[in-house]
């Protein structure tokens, strides 16, 4: 579906600039998100790819303003939603935006729903709080929303509790909640990781379909390359709190410009590799409180040169629409 080159719409609805998030820990301050920049455009899906701990969820939470301060601090950067800077927005105003203009789907649907309230109540709450609807009206709206995410017999199930639904159904309900108020941007943080293949396919289908239907921006966070390639138009790869590469999904996955993206893309097994060793990125991701100086990927990088250990390469344009943070992007692209 992303085969055609995308005509670039001028203005992104959500754009993140130079976002830095730090955590207070017993071992000192750690920088979990470092100078992150992202753009989400209307009707487009942005994938964020990266290993566990690379800062994907923190970025998402920072956008939604869900980080607990302390220990988290957004030390710099701006998050522009339709020109409105969410960083430093007064609490009341933020509450108005969160959940309606921009909303989020979490990884674990089992725990993301409150076990003691009916699902209808939980969806309807949004209408009551943000739209001031009556109990009755909000229930009807909830039923409609459940219908939209294709929960069979929605009217009969509004009064059920989350534990009465299967995992896939719960994820649908979470999605229904996120879509209830027609947000401009939907952030989905690993929405399918906890689900098995068949259900995963259903959910991805649903997300994609809803995105198209509503023409909203979608941020899809995952560490699953195939999911990214399936759903998204653009991809950002994160490593140790930084965006190391950005670009149109197709290009980025077929011809990565950063050694890390390259490692990721090639470590996926394919039929040809049967019986052979998989190409793996050696080593372990670094811990945030002891990031190596310079490029944080350098210790695992086959291209690393002494200079990589001295200064961190900036995220620069390496090809039209492609940005990468590596001194050797050109060389890698050419290979």
């Amino acid at each position, binding site marked *: 579906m992303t085969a055609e080159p995308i005509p670039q719409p001028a203005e992104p609805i959500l754009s993140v600039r130079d976002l830095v998030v730090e955590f207070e820990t017993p071992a000192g301050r750690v920088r979990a998100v470092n100078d992150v920049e992202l753009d989400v455009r209307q009707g487009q899906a942005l994938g964020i790819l990266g290993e566990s701990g690379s800062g994907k969820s923190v970025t998402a939470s920072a956008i939604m303003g*869900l980080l607990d301060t302390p220990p988290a601090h957004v030390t710099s950067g701006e998050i522009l939603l339709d020109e409105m800077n969410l960083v430093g927005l007064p609490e009341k105003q933020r509450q108005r*935006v969160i959940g309606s203009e921009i909303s989020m789907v979490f990884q674990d649907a089992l*725990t*993301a729903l*409150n076990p003691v309230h009916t699902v209808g109540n939980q969806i309807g*709450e949004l209408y009551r*709080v943000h739209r001031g609807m009556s109990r009755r009206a909000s229930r009807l709206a909830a039923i409609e929303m459940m219908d939209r995410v294709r929960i069979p017999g929605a009217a009969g199930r509004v009064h059920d*509790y989350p534990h009465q639904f299967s995992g896939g159904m719960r994820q649908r309900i979470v999605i229904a909640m996120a879509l209830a108020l027609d947000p401009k941007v939907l952030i989905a943080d690993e929405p399918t990781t906890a689900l098995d293949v068949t259900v995963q396919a259903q959910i991805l289908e649903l997300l994609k379909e809803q995105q198209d239907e509503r023409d909203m921006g979608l941020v899809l966070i995952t560490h699953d390359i195939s999911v990214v390639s399936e759903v998204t138009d653009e991809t950002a790869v994160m490593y140790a709190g930084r965006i190391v590469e950005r670009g149109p999904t197709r290009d980025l996955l077929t011809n990565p410009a950063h050694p890390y993206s390259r490692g990721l893309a090639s470590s996926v097994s394919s039929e040809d590799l049967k019986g052979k060793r998989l190409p793996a990125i050696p080593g372990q991701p670094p811990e945030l409180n002891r990031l190596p100086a310079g490029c944080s990927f350098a210790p695992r990088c086959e291209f690393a040169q002494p200079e990589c250990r001295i200064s961190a390469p900036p995220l620069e344009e390496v090809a039209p629409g492609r940005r990468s943070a590596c001194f050797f992007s050109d060389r890698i692209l050419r290979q």
Partner: protein
Amino acid sequence: MPVVIGATFIIYALTFAMPGDPVAALTGSRPLPASTVTQIREAYHLNDPFLAQYGHYMWNLVHGNLGIDFFGRPVSGLIAERWPNTFKLALTAWVLKLIIGLAIGVYGGLKHNRAGDHFALIFTVVFLGVPGFVIALGAQTLFGVQLNWVDPAGIGAGWPMAYILPALVMAFEASASLARLTRTSLVDVLRTDYMRTARAKGLSPSRSIWKHALRNAMIPVVTYLGLSLAGMLGGAVIIEAIFNIPGIGQLMVQAIHNKEGTVVVGIATLLVIVYLVFNLLVDLTYGLIDPRVRV
């Protein structure tokens, strides 16, 4: 049922094993005349072997007869006279404790690891650490004698005035554990994903706490609450003494002092049953607030 039988059996055995001779305690300085002793021992089956005594007691019990004390007063009457007092006291204390403990616990949980939390901790621990009678006497002197807001002793004023002070003291003493439990539970709940969801829905903090956090936080607390009411019903001896509330606790202590087996076992059986009933209520409440355990 097995619990009731087991408990009465053990209690009966314990009373049987208690030091002293109940008949000897009936008199003052002069031993009772031998014939009197014989008479009493026969009337109360005190000469029978233990199992026979117990069997006799249980036989009467299933026939609704709790026996009589050494002064010929029916035990059921003694208990019936005092039970309402104890019940009023314990229930009032329990409700107050609920309010105080939950308030402090919720406050501490919300201010987790910040100054407010520490303050709540110290507040509760002071009540845990200072002996109950000190607080009771202090409150009695201050509110009963100095300020004269309530009668310092006795239940002449009836509910609620006569019960409010002792109940408050009991409540404060007992609220510490509740507060700690609530706090821990709330801290756990606040960390859950669905609380994050609530915030992601753009709910105000107060709404997300009232609507989403509290009910979940109460789930582990309910068990404790139910059992603590059962405990309060049996465990207010010192408070009853200080505030001169004629209740079960006092009766029990007196009966133990006089080694009046029938009274002791009667009360204890009642308490065991109460305990079981509350256990049941807890289970029901559990189902009420946690849909996951509903059948």
